[in-house]
C-alpha cells in the first residue's frame, strides 16, 4: 500500500477549525538537503483544542511540529518554505527584531514544546521549572517566581509528589514524573500553543494515562498539537486529527470523522491497521 500521492494532491477533509484560529499554515514545504520531507501542508490550529497528528513513521509529523516553533532552524540542512502564522503574524518573517536573527525567542516563548524523551535539565526540579521565566525575565522577584513554579507544578499534578524535594535533580524523578516536569517547564513561560512530540512513547501505561489526563486539562487554556503513534490515544485526547503520509497531509478533520468515517482510502487503511 506504499502509494505515492501526486504532487498537486490536495488535503481532503476540513482544514479549518471551529474554534478561533491561533496558528495558520499555508503551503508549508520542508526540505532536508535534497529530501522533500513535507509537501504543501495547509492547516489551521485553533485555540483550546487538541490537534492530534498521526501517521506512520517518517511521514513528516515530527518535521511539521518542529516547523511550528522553528526548531528546524537548529538543523543546518533544513529549509522551510511557505507561510506559517501565529495570530496573523508570519513566524518566519514578522518575528524579526531590530537585530534580525533572534526572532525565534518570542515565537518559542509563545509556542512551547514537549519532547518524545523526557529531557529535564541536569538541575534541580525548581530550577527546571524556573528556567524559562528566569531567562525571559517574567518574574519581578523571588516570591513571584516561587509562586509561579508552584502553580505550574500544581497544574501538572506534580506538586504533591515533589514539594519536599524541590532541590533534588530533575533527572532523579521517574520517567512519567520527568515528562510532567517538562510540561510544567513549558507552561511556566505562559505559552499559547504547546507542541508535544510523542510525549508518551517513552512511558509506561500508568504514566501515559496521567499525561493524557493532563493534556485534556491543559486544553482549557492552551492550543495543543500532539504527535502520537497510538490511534487510541489520539481518539481519546483530540478534538481534531490530521493524518500524514510520506510528507503529505492526507486528511484533516474532527477526530470523530477521522476515526469513524475517514474520507481518503489511505486514512482508512491506516485507521484499520493496514499501514503503520
Amino acid at each position, binding site marked *: 500500500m506504499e502509494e505515492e500521492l501526486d504532487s498537486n494532491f490536495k488535503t481532503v477533509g476540513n482544514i479549518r477549525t471551529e474554534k478561533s484560529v491561533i496558528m495558520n499554515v499555508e503551503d508549508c514545504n520542508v526540505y532536508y538537503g535534497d529530501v522533500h520531507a513535507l509537501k504543501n501542508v495547509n492547516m489551521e490550529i485553533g485555540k483550546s483544542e487538541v490537534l492530534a497528528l498521526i501517521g506512520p513513521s517518517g511521514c513528516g509529523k515530527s518535521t511539521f511540529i518542529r516547523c511550528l516553533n522553528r526548531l528546524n532552524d537548529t538543523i543546518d540542512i533544513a529549509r522551510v518554505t511557505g507561510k506559517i502564522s501565529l495570530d496573523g503574524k508570519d513566524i518566519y518573517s514578522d518575528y524579526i*527584531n*531590530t*537585530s534580525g536573527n*533572534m526572532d525565534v*525567542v*518570542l515565537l518559542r*516563548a*509563545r509556542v512551547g514544546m514537549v519532547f518524545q524523551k523526557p529531557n529535564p535539565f541536569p538541575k534541580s526540579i525548581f530550577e527546571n521549572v524556573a528556567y524559562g521565566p528566569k*531567562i*525571559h*525575565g*517574567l518574574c519581578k522577584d523571588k516570591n*513571584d517566581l516561587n*509562586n*509561579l513554579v*508552584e*502553580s505550574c507544578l*500544581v497544574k501538572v499534578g506534580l506538586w504533591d509528589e515533589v514539594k519536599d524535594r524541590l532541590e533534588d535533580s530533575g533527572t532523579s524523578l521517574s520517567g512519567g514524573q520527568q515528562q510532567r516536569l517538562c510540561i510544567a517547564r513549558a507552561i511556566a*513561560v*505562559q505559552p499559547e500553543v504547546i507542541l508535544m512530540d510523542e510525549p508518551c512513547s517513552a512511558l509506561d501505561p500508568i504514566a501515559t494515562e496521567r499525561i493524557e489526563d493532563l493534556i485534556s486539562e491543559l486544553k482549557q487554556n492552551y492550543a495543543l498539537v500532539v504527535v502520537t503513534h497510538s490511534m487510541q490515544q489520539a481518539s481519546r485526547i483530540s478534538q481534531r486529527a490530521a493524518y500524514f503520509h510520506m510528507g503529505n497531509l492526507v486528511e484533516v478533520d474532527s477526530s470523530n470523522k477521522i476515526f469513524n468515517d475517514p474520507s481518503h482510502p489511505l486514512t482508512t487503511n491506516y485507521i484499520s491497521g493496514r499501514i503503520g
Partner: protein
Amino acid sequence: MNNINRADLNVTKLIERSLEKRNQKERYFRIYGISSLVIAVVFLLTFFASIISTGYQAFIKTDIELEVFLDSEVIYPNGTKTEEDLFFADYDSLIFTSLKEHLPELKNRKERRQARLILSSGASYKIQNKIIKDKSLVGQTVSFILPLDDEVDMYLKGYVDTESSENSRKITDFQIALVENLIEKDLIHRNFNTTLFVSGDSREPELAGILGALVGSFMMLTITFIISFPLAVSAAIYLEEFAKKNIWTDFLEVNINNLAAVPSIIYGLLGLAIFINFFGFPRSAPIVGGLVLSLMTFPVVIIASRAALKSVPPSIRDAALGLGASKIQTTLHHVVPLALPGMLTGSIVGMARALGESAPLIMIGMVAFVVDIPTSITEPSAALPVQVFLWSDAPERGFAEKTSAAIMALLVFLLLMNSLAIWLRNKFQIKW
C-alpha cells in the same frame, strides 16, 4: 495556593522588553567565540612568520670561489710524502696565498690576519678532504668553493648594522671593505646550503648541520617503534579482548591513563636512574633515548589501539566464534587486522610526539656536543629537538637562523608523519 492570574500580564510584552539586551548578549558571546579562534590563528601566523623570517636565510650560504695552488712543498714540507703529512699540512697558508692574489692591497700583518678570518676555519678541512681522496691533485691548481666565516655570512645576509660602531660588532670595517672588494671581483657567491643537511654539529655556525641530529632522531624513533608498537598493541588486545572486568584491570587501566599524562621530564629521570646509572648504558646514546621514548609512547599507543579495537563491531567476533574459531584465532585473524590501520595511525601520532620531545633526552645527557654522525645506537648522538635547544642557546648570531632552520626541518618531519597518519586513516578506515 497562590495562583496568580498571569493572563493579566502580557507575557509577550514582558519578553520584548528584555529582548534587545538578550540579543546583545548573544552577539557578544558569538564575538567572544570568534575572537578565541582569531587568537589561535594570529598566534599561528606570528609563529610561522617569526620562524620563517629568522630562518629562511639559513638555507643559503655564502661561499668564496678560489683557485688554490696545491703547492707540493707546503703540503709535504719534509719531502716524505706520507699520509700523515696530509693531516698536518698547512692548508691555511695555501688558501691565503690564493686570497692574497685577489687582494693585493693588504699591507701589514694585522690586515693580513683580518683577511684570513674572512674564510671559515672549515675551509682548510675541505681542501684536506679532497686531497686525501685524490692525492694526484697535489701540485695542481684546483678551483675550490670554500665557506666564509659566519660573521661575514651574517654581514652578507644583511644582519650586520654597518652604521654601528666597529667595536660593537665582530666584523671590522676593513673586513667589510675586503668582502665588498671580493664581491666586485665576482668571487663570492650565494649557494644552497648543503652543509646544513650533510654535516653534524659544529662550534662554527657555517659548518654546523643537522644530519647528526636527524640520524640520532631516526634511530631513536626506529627503536621506539620496534619496542612500543608490538608491546602496546598486545597490551591493548589483552585489555580490550581478554581481560575480565575486575579490580586488577581497573588498576591497570588507571595506571596506563596516568602514565600517559606523566610529565615527560619524569621519564628522563627514569632513563637516567635506571638505564644509565643502574644498567650502565652509555650516556647520550640513541639506545637509551629510544628506550625512554618507548616507555613514553607505550601508554599513548595502548589508548589509541584500544579505541581502534573498540570500533570493530562485536558482530565480527560473534561470526568468527560461531564458526568454532578459538578466542585467539578470532582476535588475531579477524579483529586485529581490521583494527590495524587505527592502531598504526595512533602509533604514528605517538611517534610524532616522541620526535618532538626533548626534556627526557636532555636528562639522559643528549645535550652533549657531538660532532660525528652516529653509526650505531650505542654511540653518543644528538637529536633534532635537542639540537634546536642547543643552538637556540648558542651566542653566535649565525646559530639563530640555524635554529629556525632546524625547527623548520623538525616541523616538516612532524607534518610528514601526521600526513602519513591521516592518509592511513582515510585509506583504510572502515565505516561500520
